[in-house]
């Protein structure tokens, strides 16, 4: 009954590769999570530098953001992948996975910095002034008053950027990091079955995307549609 389907999309072969794709998805989730956390920390630092009154802090942060937003991620991945091994670090070379995560984090941090900067800008001046006038230090004001509100306001675009990050992580397959796209490429190189290979990878990414849409809707509701 499903003979016609087997010609177009041989799900039996795909079933043989189920564990390969499952491992690919797990790797994609792992890579994205680590890169997201690193990008948020780095991005917050850069956002604060860009808002600093000191030009010496503002200037490098601006160059960082513009340089990373003005060049393709793939080129950045190559630069980190080929470039870092030449720099002595830890007494050994970074492997593909470490280099890939590093490149993704550094790249995403530039976008996160802009989102967080806008988030900080959306917190009314009076909040910080009030905190300062009740005797909070500048650090306390930032930590307890400004940043929590900034992150609440920035959550929807941060989730959107995370969806982009997940899709971007597929580029790591080009430097031989194993993830969801690589799972499809392995099926392709083993059996030369483009439909099964690439449509299955696409379906995996769509499943992850659907989860992200759910998270996004949940966050929008929880935050009362604050954007």
């Amino acid at each position, binding site marked *: 009954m499903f003979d016609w389907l087997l010609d177009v999309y041989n799900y039996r072969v795909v079933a043989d590769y189920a564990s390969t794709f499952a491992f690919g998805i797990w790797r994609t989730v792992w890579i994205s999570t680590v890169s997201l956390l690193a990008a948020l920390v780095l991005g917050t630092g850069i956002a604060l530098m860009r808002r600093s009154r000191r030009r010496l802090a503002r200037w490098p942060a601006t160059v960082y953001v513009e340089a990373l937003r003005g060049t393709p991620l793939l080129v950045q991945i190559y630069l980190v992948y080929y470039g870092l091994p030449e720099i002595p670090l830890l007494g050994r070379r970074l492997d593909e996975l470490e280099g890939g995560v590093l490149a993704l984090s550094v790249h995403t941090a530039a976008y996160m910095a802009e989102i967080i900067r806008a988030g900080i800008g959306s917190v009314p001046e009076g909040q910080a002034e009030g905190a300062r006038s009740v005797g909070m230090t500048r650090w306390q004001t930032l930590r307890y008053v400004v940043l929590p509100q900034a992150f609440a306001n920035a959550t929807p675009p941060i989730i959107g950027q995370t969806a982009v990050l997940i899709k971007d992580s597929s*580029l790591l397959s080009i430097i031989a990091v194993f993830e969801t796209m690589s799972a499809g490429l392995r099926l392709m190189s083993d059996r030369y079955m483009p439909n099964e290979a690439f449509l299955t990878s696409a379906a995996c*990414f769509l499943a992850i995307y659907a989860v992200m849409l759910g998270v996004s809707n949940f966050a929008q509701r929880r935050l009362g549609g604050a954007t």
Partner: protein
Amino acid sequence: MLDALQQHMPFLLAGLWMTVQVTLLGICFGTLFGTLVGIARALGPRPAFWILGAYIHLWRGTPFLCQIYIVYFVLPQTGIAWLQFDSFQASVVALTIYSSSYIAEIVRAAINAVPRGQVEGARSVGMTSGQTLRYVIAPQALRMVLPPLGGVYVIMVKVTAVLSVIGTTELVRQANLVIQRDPANIMPIFLVVAGLYFVFCYPMLLLTQWAERRYGGLHLEA
């Protein structure tokens, strides 16, 4: 090293020229196609809204890399003659589809941002729906569309780097070929490549920021 770079430069510039060509074709077709989809989704009947919405989610939910592989490897499997793309055609098709999914949502949001009363007013003074679109909606929507459209164009320049995987001889592919001949200078070569992309992208980025200050941002649903 500078001598070597000077020797490689013609190849890299040829790659940049290919990047420019592919990008411009993708921008033209993508804008045209995306605008049609966006108009159909904003003003068309309900079923069109849902079907085109599914189309948009399908392309937004998958990485561009995956889309290239699908256009280049999966579409020819259908056996349909005009889907047998060479790598250049596949590149333009993939870019067109990719950008259209973003542009369609921008156009739809801009049309929806034109107050309803404007349309009702135009219709009540006797304009046809075509005239309303042409003389009332389009001029207002066009301004709102410009800043986010510029953002999509910048993204398009950058994603063309990925087209190297199907052998389109654009900038990154040329760089990879140059590196095979001269593996000692990987870093300088890729720094030059990054510089070339930056020279292409940064003016567009500045123009986008200028348009955003001039015309204001458009609120897009995530």
